[in-house]
């Protein structure tokens, strides 16, 4: 049994490795896609225009804050915003990326117990820049806090007289530019796991080698699992490459559990392979398998998963259709884990649904191949 299984897996690997061009494409396509999407994200923060709306009327502490901001390489203080009403216009022009709002009575309030807050207003339509700017500005405010504490003879750094109050504009959902990473992974998983599995199985049907396998003592489940394993590994490697590229080269964060991310990917890949086997059982030729995978799997993965069009903007009925697309749950899960840093427990719904899809689809494939008593053509 194990020898047979291994023999079958070796054969599948040989098929995969023999098709050098296909294999090269499987890795070249995601690389190209990630590069393409990745370079659209602006990364460098260098003398970014920042305006200060100072309502404190020449408070020395406020001036100190502005000086510190000016001293930082990341910021260039511009003079575009004189009142609250100017903020919107400045953002729309693109002349300003962040506005630092200093409230009235800044200096005196900072020395009271309750403290005061610096408001950081950002243009979150480019979420990447916005969060980076907030990061730098917060660090500067923290510096100032430390100085204030020493000045007042407080040793504890825990007391923070100055708080930071962040306001993101124009992107209430905080849709991240990094959304392309889970999107690209979802597409690649569909191409490698689902489409390739369905095409190779359809090829065995078309050329008749499947008949040789059914006549042999090889069990149906050995054939199914012997297909699942190599394609699972191939897809997992591909997914890891995209992930590494996204995180190392384009700075995609991973705030949540790495194990959670791996589990989510594994379940999604299994569900995709299950879909591939299902498609191959319904078609007779490689060509139909290819077409069915493109139309039935790849298109929904791109269009109905929230990758390109946000689900919230779709009509109610369409949203229900989206919910049966595995990629929808995968993207939701990855977004929650990596970008929002939600704990794994919060994502039980996408995890359960993907797990159920994988279980049902692989189970169905095993059942179909175990069924022996079929009428001859």
């Amino acid at each position, binding site marked *: 049994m194990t020898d047979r299984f291994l023999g079958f897996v070796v054969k599948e690997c*040989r098929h995969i490795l023999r098709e050098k061009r296909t294999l090269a494409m499987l890795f070249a396509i995601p690389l190209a896609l990630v590069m393409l999407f990745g370079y659209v994200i602006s990364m460098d923060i260098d003398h970014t225009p920042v305006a200060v709306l100072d309502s404190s009327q020449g408070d020395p502490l406020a001036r100190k804050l502005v000086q510190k901001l000016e001293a930082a390489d990341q910021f260039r203080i511009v003079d575009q915003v004189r009142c609250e009403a100017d903020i919107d216009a400045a953002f729309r022009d693109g002349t300003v990326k962040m506005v630092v709002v200093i409230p009235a009575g800044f200096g005196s309030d900072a020395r009271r117990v309750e403290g005061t807050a610096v408001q950081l207003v950002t243009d979150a339509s480019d979420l990447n820049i916005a969060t980076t700017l907030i990061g730098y500005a917060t660090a500067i405010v923290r510096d100032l806090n430390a100085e204030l504490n020493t000045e007042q003879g407080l040793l504890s750094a825990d007391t923070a007289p100055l708080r930071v109050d962040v306001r993101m504009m124009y992107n209430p959902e905080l849709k991240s530019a990094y959304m392309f990473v889970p999107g690209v992974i979802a597409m690649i998983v569909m191409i490698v796991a689902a489409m390739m599995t369905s095409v190779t199985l359809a090829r065995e049907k078309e050329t008749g080698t499947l008949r040789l396998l059914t006549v042999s*003592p090889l069990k149906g489940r050995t054939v199914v699992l012997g297909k699942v394993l190599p394609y699972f590994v191939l897809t997992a490697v591909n997914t890891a490459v995209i992930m590494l590229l996204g995180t190392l080269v384009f700075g995609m964060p991973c705030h949540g559990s790495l194990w959670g991310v791996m589990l989510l990917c594994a379940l999604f890949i299994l569900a995709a392979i299950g879909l591939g086997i299902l498609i191959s059982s319904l078609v007779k030729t490689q060509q139909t398998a290819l077409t069915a995978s493109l139309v039935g799997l790849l298109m929904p993965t791109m269009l109905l998963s929230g990758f390109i069009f946000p689900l919230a903007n779709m009509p109610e009925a369409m949203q229900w259709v989206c919910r049966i697309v595995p990629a929808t749950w995968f993207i939701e899960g990855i977004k929650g884990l990596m970008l929002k840093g939600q704990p794994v427990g919060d994502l039980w719904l996408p995890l359960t649904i993907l797990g159920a899809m994988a279980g049902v689809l692989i189970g169905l494939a095993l059942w179909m191949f175990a069924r022996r008593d079929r009428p001859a053509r």
Partner: protein
Amino acid sequence: MDERSIITEHLTRRFGTFTAVDDLTFDVGRGEVFGFLGANGAGKTTAIRMLCGLLRPTSGQAEVAGCDVARNPEQVKRRIGYMSQRFSLYNDLTVSENLQLFGTIYGLSRTRLRERIREMYRRLSMERIKDQLVGGLPPGWKQKIALSAAMLHRPQVLFLDEPTGGVDPLERRRFWELILDTAAGGTTILVTTHYLDEALYCNRTLIMADGRIQAIGQPRTLMSEHQAADMDDLFSRLTRPAGGTTGRKEAEV
């Protein structure tokens, strides 16, 4: 030990109201080359699928290599070999990779498999092509390799399902020599073919039409019994008793 390798009794298979195989009773002795003739749709494929343990009989019984095909299909599968021109090898694998795969699938140990493959190379003198992709080889070679793959586990019964399709006459002749050679070694062979002249290589033939046995016996005896000039003539008479004209290409329709 029973000297019969295939025994069927009233073997029948229906698909809905259509009876594909109707009351088949025959047996094949050990080491016999048994021809299975019939036009497309005569029920040959269904019968073979039942004998290979792929399809459950609706009624009747069949025993292949000592195992009941309905009760013990897994044992049947281990003891038989199957080869067909249509359902061939993996074209994107080399000769030796194909042989290794099928040897492993049939449960041969690594050392024994290596031994048998080496012996096979020697016998068919194909050492020099062992690392070539099967897809690039001429049909005659593919056929020999497919037969070798089906023989690696030394099956008691070998099913050859239209093994010579698309191969030129000389190659067919050589292939038949190989088949007869194999049978002489004690392997029982059940072969279906579209080329009626090939039936003359068989010890006995069974001619099927509409799911039933029309005739069974030694080809030459059958021909003289029915006063047929050759196998084509015999075939036409048996499968189309009403039609007076004899179409030479009848079997290949």
